[in-house]
């Protein structure tokens, strides 16, 4: 790809959740990511050859990548604080382009109404732009914290990809640390979707669209990134939404994602290389072979249905579970 035209939509999504179902995902790290890129001259290129030219560019005076920073408002938790921080970030790094989208915009993407709001899809209401309260209703009707987290992440991903396409970006930079990717690896395994891991955690093409995804911080542990934010000058503390520590209990209200987060935060402390190794290991798996254009895909998450869905289903097993999570009681 040509460095001068590469833009990126970093997903900046502040999630300040008192709710245990909303793991704090993107905000601090997306911001960190971006500032690191611009403020650091100690960037260790490692696997992220994509960012190297940016740094070199800065040093040599040539143009680096143009970044488009996307902030997805999900209306949860301390949204006003998050928005405030986003303003601060804009101010600190005026050279980038910024935009904000509510997460509910994802509901307006093709097919989403039919899958998520089958009753409204046929009525007049469907022509109106879905609002945040529509999204809240959909999420509230799901039966488990895991389902809510799943759908939330799925919509976020779809929206970011959509925005990247709209802005003709050539790549999407995600702020996931190696710790976060390890969490996702085990979470997807626990959801029976490990077959999607090669495309979900690896740099490059994704099944969602033409814009390839990259994880520039894939080699860094969460704790390293946090250290960095205080070591760099000026420090980034004031730009970062503080993560409130959550009780480390495992109840049925916890999501699988939250469980994995707790798990890896303890593994990270003692065995950091094992965290990284989990990601490397699944990175070696082959991508499932797909006959492009021939095979049906899940209408919600876009995985190939063959082998991963009931017969004649338009949704994969995983998405069926999201939408029909049953109460198990006990």
């Amino acid at each position: 790809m040509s460095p001068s035209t590469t833009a990126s939509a970093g997903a900046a999504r502040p999630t300040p959740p008192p709710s245990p179902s909303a793991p704090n995902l993107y905000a601090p790290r997306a911001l960190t990511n971006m500032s690191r890129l611009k403020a650091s001259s100690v960037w260790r290129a490692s696997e992220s050859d994509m960012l190297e030219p940016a740094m070199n560019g800065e040093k040599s005076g040539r143009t680096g990548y143009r970044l488009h920073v996307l902030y997805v408002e999900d209306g949860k938790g301390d949204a006003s604080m998050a928005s405030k921080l986003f303003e601060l970030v804009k101010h600190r790094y005026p050279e980038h382009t910024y935009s904000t989208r509510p997460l509910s915009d994802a509901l307006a993407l093709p097919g989403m109404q039919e899958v998520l709001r089958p009753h409204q899809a046929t009525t007049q209401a469907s022509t109106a732009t879905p609002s945040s309260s529509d999204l809240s209703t959909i999420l509230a009707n799901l039966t488990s914290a895991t389902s809510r987290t799943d759908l939330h992440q799925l919509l976020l991903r779809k929206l970011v990809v959509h925005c990247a396409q709209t802005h003709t970006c050539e790549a999407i930079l995600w702020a996931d640390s190696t710790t976060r990717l390890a969490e996702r690896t085990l979470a997807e395994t626990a959801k029976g979707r490990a077959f999607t891991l090669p495309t979900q955690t690896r740099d490059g093409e994704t099944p969602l669209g033409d814009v390839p995804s990259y994880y520039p911080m894939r080699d860094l542990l969460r704790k390293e990134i946090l250290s960095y934010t205080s070591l760099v000058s000026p420090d980034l503390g004031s730009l970062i939404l503080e993560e409130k520590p959550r009780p480390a209990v495992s109840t049925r209200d916890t999501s699988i994602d939250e469980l994995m987060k707790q798990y890896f935060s303890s593994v990270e402390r003692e065995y950091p290389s094992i965290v990284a190794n989990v990601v490397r290991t699944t990175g070696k798996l082959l991508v499932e072979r797909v006959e492009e254009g021939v095979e049906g895909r899940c209408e919600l998450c876009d995985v190939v249905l063959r082998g991963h869905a009931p017969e004649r289903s338009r949704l994969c097993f995983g998405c069926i579970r999201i939408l029909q999570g049953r109460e198990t009681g006990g």
Partner: protein
Amino acid sequence: MPHYPCQTCHISRAQILRPSTGTRLCAPCFTLAFETETAATITSSSLFHPGERIAIGASGGKDSTVLASVLQTLNTRYNWGLELVLLSIDEGIAGYRDHSLEAVKRNAEVLGLPLKILGYEELYGWSMDAVVAQVGRKGNCTYCGVFRRQALDRGAAVLGVRHVVTGHNADDVAETVVMNLLRGDLARLGRGTSLVTGTGGAEGGFASVKRSKPLMWAYEKEIVMYAHHKRLDYFSTECIYSPEAFRGSARTLIKNLERIRPESILDVVRSGIDMARLVPGAGGEGGSGSLRVEAIPRDAEDDTGGGCSGDNGEDAGGEMARVEETLRLNERAEEEGTETEIRLPAKAVNGQRHDRDGLHTGPPAAALPATVNGQNHDRHTHIPDIAVVPIRTKQEKKSGRKTAGDNLPPRQRLGQCERCGYLSSQAVCKACMLLEGLNKARPRTGIEVGGAGG
């Protein structure tokens, strides 16, 4: 708790909430459903053939006890004509197996099945007590683990049986999946999740004895419920050792997952099967289970038949710490841009590292940091097992990234031990190496190595 009617017969009061389906059933409907599902696992994969002789690896624990009971029930119900026999292994540690073997004996009587108890003494010429007398306490777990790996196969061969079934359940398989992800061991993902390993062919003595786990889709909780409602008599083994670190860590995680979403146990198993299919060289996408069967060796951890896997005298955290250290050294080596292959002195203690890991078809090993492993590369002289972690150069790494995970060595071929014929990456398998050492130190006469090896 409110009263619910059974969701199957709609008559009796429901006594059980099935974790696998979330349905509420009365006890008779539950046990019938459990049996029918096990039968479906067996028939849908043509696991047995009519008249086949099957040895049930019986430890006296709940899993193998339930397996024996269910198989006996199904064999009668469906007229499968199977010839079932219980096979127990006695390590020969005075007092250690007393209670569990008593449970097995009682079960054999109740079920009307023949029982064969074989000791390490008969299988290897050495009981564990004799091994300890010879080598001391330290390191004796290596022997126990390595011997256990082959014990059921050797025992089956002694009985002239070509197929051994073990009581591994869905929780065990899910644990193994998570554990191998943490270890970064793709090769083992396939072995842990396949219903059948080994060929069962007549050739090759005990080395080709077929192994299967008919309860691999059954929840541990339901196995306990089944045992309870059928009033089965089993010995609850509390392992005297802390579980090996990876397994302990994985077990806790699986239990927590089950609490959040009971279905996730089977989802992890399905994920494991999918990943095994996507391991480069594993038979490719869409490869059927049978394709992978022949080359799939057993693991020590697969051989406990639901009993205590206390083959580990090492402190919990040992293996995790060692893997961690190796990975760190690898990272350092990588940063220095050198092509290095660091060999991990594996599990000297319980032999859980498999022989197969020693087989590496990549480029010859370069620098070998003495701190990691002072061992000799010569396959004939090293005793403790080794795992090889191949490191790619930066160059390789970049190209590997683009072509999506083709950076594993080509499909590994396992050879056979030249003495006993067991699957082994080394010319002589570990059990034979250990036996050689033992026998050299105190030559014994009249006892052949292995029951049916030759």
